């Protein structure tokens, strides 16, 4: 697979994205080392300006909590929510899409009606209702985001399976006597992975934005310091302390941008002919 790595690294944007994401991951993992006590602790005077006080380079919020700690622990929550909800959505999407795409007939119709049903209600509205029902907590937010974001994956996987099912190497697998289950898993799925990976990378980005929107609307998890929470909390202080909402906003921007750039890189690396044709 060195060809893949070579093509991916040639895309400067993707490399930059990788470095940013790596830095954010390091900060997230090292949060307990960098900031020993919890981000909720009131450690200093409130509203210290950033880059003023050596000990608190990012300043403090209206309760005297260290914003730097908030950003670090916030990274954990946001990335975790993004990753877990996307993983759940992708797995569900693959299961449903594969079954619909491979078997066709009434199975396909039934599953597609279900997918269509989920897509008739706008995503954010559905997420808000689900979180209100399950009462706001990390678990309910992840579940809500997963439930609203699996349909596009299902449609994508169905499309891939429909076309790949007709391909000759799949018919060859039938001819040599492989069971449908194994055919789906070992023959078709590996070849459908590239569009799935690209969509998944974008879904992580969307999940982080949705979590911050939910926190902004007051439906965030109260015990988890997340970036969305910080923006929501700092909203009232927009005029007195604009930097309090600026920094988490920039943090979200950078993370989502990095993930998008990596997604673009994956896209070019995984199906080179698309990029090549664009050249001439």
């Amino acid at each position, binding site marked *: 697979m060195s060809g893949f790595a070579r093509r991916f690294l040639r895309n400067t944007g993707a490399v930059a994205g990788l470095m940013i994401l790596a830095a954010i991951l390091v900060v997230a993992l090292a949060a307990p080392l960098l900031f020993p006590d919890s981000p909720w602790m009131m450690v200093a005077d409130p509203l210290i300006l950033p880059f003023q006080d050596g000990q608190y380079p990012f300043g403090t919020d209206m309760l005297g909590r260290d914003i730097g700690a908030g950003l670090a622990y916030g990274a954990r929550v946001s990335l975790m929510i993004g990753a877990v909800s996307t993983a759940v959505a992708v797995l569900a999407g693959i299961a449903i899409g594969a079954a619909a795409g491979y078997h066709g007939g009434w199975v396909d119709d039934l599953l597609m009606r279900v997918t269509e049903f989920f897509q008739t209600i706008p995503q954010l509205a559905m997420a808000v209702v689900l979180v209100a029902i399950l009462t706001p907590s990390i678990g309910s937010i992840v579940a809500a985001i997963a439930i609203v974001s699996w349909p596009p994956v299902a449609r994508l996987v169905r499309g891939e399976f429909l076309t790949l099912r007709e391909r000759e*190497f799949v*018919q060859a697998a039938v*001819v*040599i*006597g492989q069971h449908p289950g194994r055919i789906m898993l070992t023959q078709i799925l590996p070849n459908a992975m590239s569009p799935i990976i690209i969509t998944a990378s974008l879904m992580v980005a969307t999940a982080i934005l949705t979590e911050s929107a939910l926190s902004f609307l007051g439906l965030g998890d109260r015990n988890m310091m997340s970036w969305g929470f910080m923006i929501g909390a700092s909203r009232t202080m927009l005029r007195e302390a604009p930097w309090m909402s600026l920094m988490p906003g920039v943090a979200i921007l950078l993370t989502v941008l990095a993930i998008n750039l990596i997604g673009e890189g994956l896209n070019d690396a995984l199906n080179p002919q698309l990029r090549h044709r664009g050249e001439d």
Partner: protein
Amino acid sequence: MRTMPDHSTSADVAPLLRVRDLTVPLPGGERPYAVRDVSFDIARGEILCIVGESGSGKSISAGAIMGLLPHHLTPERGEILFDGVDLLRLSETEMLARRGRQIGMIFQEPMSALNPTMRIGDQIAEVMAVHGTHPGPARRKRVLDLLDLVGLPDPATLQHVYPFRLSGGQRQRVVIAMALALEPALLIADEPTTALDVTTQAQILALIKRIQARMGMGVMFITHDFGVVADIADRIAVMEKGVLVEQGRATEVLDSPRHPYTRHLIAAVPTGRAVPRGVTVEDAPLLAVRNLIKTYTTSGGPFRPKRVVPAVCDVSFEVRRGEALGIVGESGSGKSTIGKCLLKLQGIDGGEIVFDGQDIAPLSQAAFRPQRRRLQMIFQDPFASLNPRQTVGRILTDGPVAGGEARAEAMARARTLLDLVGLPASALERYPHEFSGGQRQRVGIARALALQPDLIVADESVSALDVSVQAQVLALLKDLQKRLGVALVFITHDLRVAAEVCQRIAVMHRGCLVEYGPSAEVLGASREDYTRRLIEAMPGRAWDARRQPASAA
């Protein structure tokens, strides 16, 4: 063979096109130059055929002339004099004035050569609009004349039609109409008939020759099919890996080729004469197909009637153990459908498929699965028939493992299979994209043999390969079939290939079995007029007659 006008290139008449030392570097390719020091001339009213295998640089020379090469391919040196003007030095605007007006071009893929969302008439009229010719009503009239010139029915209504309503052959006629709209001095035809049926191909070749003679155009005809070359070429240029190895009058190059590569290519072309071979007559046939019926129904909605299209109607034939049956027909004749039905990749709507005494048609997929081992298939497209994400070793052992064999044991046998089909044992750990077309097809054959089948269905297994590679694979198939006593059902549209391999041939037309008998009888003295028409449409038959028979099998 059409009578050859004596076109010796006299010194005083300057050639229409003079290409000198054309050299185009190939950055990052498998060889330094796509095309190196290529020189040839095309006189007015002359058809020069450029022949060579895929990747030999024929299309790139054409692209250089038209100035349509992609960004990363720019000619390094050489000149292309057209009417005394070097096209390589011209600016884009100057080239624009010539493209379509003085140089026309037609391409290989008729199905995607036309803008799907623009009517036929408008696409043809565009050429005139761009060059500002035939203003006003004259343009509309010219479009109708051109449609009529290229032999399309009812031009008045046809001009308003969208491309998707036309067949491959009809679309190619439209592309030709577009290229010839302004009666260019030079026409470049890049494999114009490769994607067409034999009968349609014959009509298009005749059309090009008729128009060329009337307009006195120079034609640069690119192809890899020697049959086509023999029918149409005045002069021939042979290219190998970007170098023009031989050039000369058609009869000289075809009948007494000087360069070893040319000789090797010509030898690889099957002669199409059936070699009678002993047919081992046995009592019960291995496979007996009786009154097979298969129909396709387009899905009708709650308010739309279902549309039923018959693909195979009432076909019966038999295959004996160790025998090779050829199923021949044009596209849409139902031959591939029969192949899929035999292997139960598709259900059937009537009739029986008796394999070794048992009718396998009504069996469910699960019930039939243990039997699958005895019926195997070789596919057409070497690039699509192998899973790109699996190593060759894994591909060859998936079948036996599915049948319950241990992976290690299957792997051992896979090595012997690779040897059998002429591939190195090291291939086991490598991925399909590391092999050439021919090598991949050999892996496909090995996969089929892995389960020691009694019958193999080969669906167009060589039509995607270059001539020379085709010859090797066919030889391998014939050898294996004899040595292992495997029955073979060989599906193809190419009569020459069928004659080379099969003892008996079945000719299909629009889903029905037109003729069925020993290949020598069917090809030599056919009783059915459709078969005769099919045989006559084969390009280069005259040249075949002149050639001594290919080395006996």
